[in-house]
């Protein structure tokens, strides 16, 4: 009941401002799709038989999912901390596990809603075959989970909005943009290709792409392992922060 209430509140919080939290990122992805597929779509075929317009769809969907999952938990927590209303969830007998799971699942829900929205509007440009729906779903949920956990960490760590913006602009944004959203990493010079393999977001997008097309730059099992370990690591750090009351309880 306690967990369910917090989850419900966190979902309702972003749904109340869905124009900003769902419609806006869907529109942004649509604009990316429109511009990139028309400007360079004719000249590029990332995988044999896969058009650039189709290739772009899972990249954009996953990027939007990841950014919004992060934004959900982090903005909820930083707002609650800055305004002081966080006391209303710290005073009740919620366990740190309930706190974590409610924020994490709400982030995943927002990520999935945005991702489904992006896929729905970009289908006008191309129709990926969605070859492996289970892999597709797995990477959607895990990817949003990783960013949800990172969002909780960011929201707890940051003490003001500009610290969180720094976290978002200097860590999350480069990781997502340099992960193969707009290109296959095989088209990169060897140095950047090697560097991409150290970026866990690359595996989220690549695994998701495997679910869409049945082809990818890395093996889906390798991607699953990297994303799974990343999630476990971040979840562990988040739980430890919450258990110790880091920056929440003095």
């Amino acid at each position, binding site marked *: *009941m306690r967990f369910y209430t*917090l989850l419900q*509140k966190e979902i309702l919080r972003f749904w109340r401002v869905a124009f900003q939290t769902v419609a806006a990122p869907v529109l942004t992805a649509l604009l990316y799709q429109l511009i990139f597929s028309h400007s360079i779509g004719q000249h590029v075929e990332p995988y044999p038989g896969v058009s650039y317009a189709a290739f772009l769809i899972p990249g954009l969907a996953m990027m939007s999912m990841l950014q919004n999952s992060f934004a959900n938990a982090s903005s909820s927590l930083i707002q609650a901390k800055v305004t002081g*209303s966080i006391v*209303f969830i710290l005073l*009740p*007998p919620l366990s740190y596990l309930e706190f974590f799971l409610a924020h994490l699942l709400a982030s995943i829900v927002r990520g999935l809603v945005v991702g489904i929205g992006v896929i729905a509007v970009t289908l006008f440009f191309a129709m990926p075959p969605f070859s492996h729906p289970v892999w597709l779903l797995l990477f959607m949920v895990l990817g949003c989970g990783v960013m949800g956990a990172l969002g909780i960490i960011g929201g707890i760590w940051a003490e003001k909005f500009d610290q969180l913006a720094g976290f978002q602009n200097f860590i999350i944004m480069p990781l997502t943009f340099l992960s193969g959203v707009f290109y296959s990493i095989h088209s990169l010079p060897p140095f950047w290709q090697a560097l991409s393999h150290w970026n866990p977001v690359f595996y989220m997008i690549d695994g998701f792409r495997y679910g869409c097309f049945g082809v990818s730059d890395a093996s889906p099992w390798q991607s699953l392992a990297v994303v799974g370990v990343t999630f476990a690591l971040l979840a562990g750090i988040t739980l430890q922060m919450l258990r110790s009351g880091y920056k929440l*309880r*003095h």
Partner: protein
Amino acid sequence: MSAIVFDRICKQFGSFSALDEVSFRVEQGDFFALLGPNGAGKTTLISILGGLARATSGTATVMGYDVVQDYRAARSAIGIVPQELVFDPFFTVRETLRFQSGYFGIRHNDDWIDEILLNIGLAEKADTNMRKLSGGMKRRVMVAQALVHRPPVIVLDEPTAGVDVELRQSLWAFIRRLNEAGHTIVLTTHYLEEAETLCNRIAMLKQGRLIALEDKDTLMGHGSARSLRIVTTAQALPDSLMPLVTGGSGPEFELKLADCCALEDILGELRRAGIGLKDIEVTKPDLEEIFVDMMHR
């Protein structure tokens, strides 16, 4: 079983000692005032009860539950109204209270929510967004949030700041009814007349140390000396009374009055000197004077 027990609570913030070996009990059914100047440690003490802060050493219990070991039971037994005016701008008053009920594991709590809203004068604002409420109304919603789970112990940290006089009266009437119904109330306030009127026991903190813990009547009784104001038929007092004079000039004088026996002595001296009385008044120090006196010791 005491409602609240603090046992040798210390709280350090770096090298600053916010609480230093604070120990006292609040008994069930008490209407208890926790007083002290800003920075005395009142809010830190309350934060320790609610789990917002952790004591560096010492233990605290609420209704017998340790606030760290049995935090779920302890937090379910206490409702805290925080000092800062805070609210979640996304929701209406009713949604806010329903969520707060859910955090305490309570479903279908609307009957009690309606009763609280009626008592704090917000029944008509139930479906209004929190953003649209005045400061005083937001403050009252915070009181309601602390009450949704019907806690046996209610802690109010400056609950009437920014609330107008009429609503303050209705809020206190409601809190008093809760106290009469058996709830233990702990109050911090800068309106000392409120504490004097409402509370039966009083603790005072100064620089993180407990400097007074008494029944209100005892504290009021042995506070700073009472004073005696007299208007006499003469312009001067006998020499024997001059050391007691604290103010005024003939024929009106103010004298220090250590206790009631001293009054007999003063009147006797006046009689012996042939000085008549036109008016006489004994004034008792109020809680504010006692508080100021204690803080300056």
